[in-house]
């Protein structure tokens, strides 16, 4: 592996996990710089998840959502070039973390694909109403009276409520170590 590949693997491992030691000899300036990148990474991706899973965030509340999103980013770090894919498997993450409240995963499942931004795109292509009877969420493609190209029906949506994260034993340390090590050859690189 080249020096650059090693450096990038090391840098990304530090970015994904505060517990990964920074390279030996880094001064406080570099440590502070890494903190900027870490913060930007998490903020951007949690914001993307919040945008896609807006109803889930409303349901569980901001604090619980942030913790769930942070957990998801560690257990399912993004792999694709588009940030829209960051929400893949988030419903499964919610099912695990909010095991006592199946509605959370159900609401997340209704939103996970396509993402909010893709919804804008797809709905303009006159996609049929997605229904969403179980969750109370319904995406309708027909223009509403205000002329907006799409709307979200939320007759069944509930207001935010407290939701406790599942207290089951976390496998995060093991996952973090695995993420820091893993680097496999993709088949779609040129």
């Amino acid at each position: 592996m080249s020096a650059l590949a090693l450096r990038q693997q090391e840098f990304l491992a530090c970015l994904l996990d505060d517990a990964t030691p920074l390279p030996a000899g880094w001064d406080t300036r570099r440590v502070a710089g890494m903190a900027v990148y870490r913060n930007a990474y998490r903020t951007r991706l949690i914001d993307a998840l919040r945008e896609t899973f807006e109803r889930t965030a409303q349901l569980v509340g901001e604090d619980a959502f942030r913790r769930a999103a942070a957990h998801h980013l560690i257990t399912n770090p993004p792999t694709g070039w588009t940030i829209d894919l960051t929400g893949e498997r988030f419903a499964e993450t919610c099912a695990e973390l909010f095991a006592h409240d199946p509605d959370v995963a159900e609401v997340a499942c209704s939103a996970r694909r396509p993402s909010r931004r893709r919804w804008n795109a797809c709905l303009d292509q006159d996609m049929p109403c997605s229904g969403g009877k179980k969750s109370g969420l319904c995406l309708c493609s027909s223009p509403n009276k205000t002329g907006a190209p799409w709307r979200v029906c939320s007759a069944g949506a509930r207001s935010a409520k407290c939701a406790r994260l599942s207290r089951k034993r976390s496998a995060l340390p093991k996952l973090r170590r695995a993420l820091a090590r893993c680097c496999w050859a993709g088949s779609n690189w040129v």
Partner: protein
Amino acid sequence: MNAIAPWGGFGLGLRRDHYHDFLSGNVAVDFVEVISENFMVDGGRPLRVLEQVRAKLPVILHGVSMSIGSAHGLDREHLTKLKTLADRIEPLWVSDHLCWTRTSAHNSHDLLPLPLTRGALGVVCDNIDRAQEFLGRAMLFENPSSYLTFPEDEMPEWEFLAEMSLRTGCYLLLDVNNIHVSACNHGFEAADYLAGIPADRVRQVHLAGHTPGEIVIDTHDAPVCDAVWDLYAKAMSMLGDVAVMIERDDAIPPLPELLTELARARISTSAALGTEKAA
């Protein structure tokens, strides 16, 4: 690879907040720039809006996910979708950043800094050669803002960019705010940076706001500050015809506010060139 001729003008980023303004009237800009990845889709409203705007104005495709500095090469799916978009929109040019965003395993969705080494330069040049060959066009690459440097750095960023452009034939997108941000964070002289850039390879200039602090952060959420305007005037006195753009990606104000800021760029350019050409 086909050369990109110098082209002068003043433009803005096309952001969702301003779709209506651009569609409903004639906005006083010479071009718009869009984030390529937001339109690398098969259809939908954003793409339709872009095509409608393209019928009125030249468009620049500015990417954030090529990861030209990745040791693991380029993502063929990303390149394929970018080429499809470029062939559809026929932009003035296609640009991205001198950075890396991912390994073969994970994607940070951030513009991460490269070690400025001979080895990294070789990787970047190989990737640029492949990207330009795949797209069938020369590209522009932008100097990033950065928050750390590496102990193994062997050259300043401006030398890296100059060598990169010489070896690959790519052109440069000079972000004046990024120069200011990195100069503050790393302690080099912005004037040295400008002096080291091959002016004849620059085709576009970016202006933006940032957040000051112990580490200056490139946030694109505020007006261009006076220090960056001063640096911009120095840069424009060195450059020929270039496309000048103001970036605003957060706390996006009403369009007239951005047009007022763009007018300042026109005036500053006129003053820097000592002509009325840009006015």
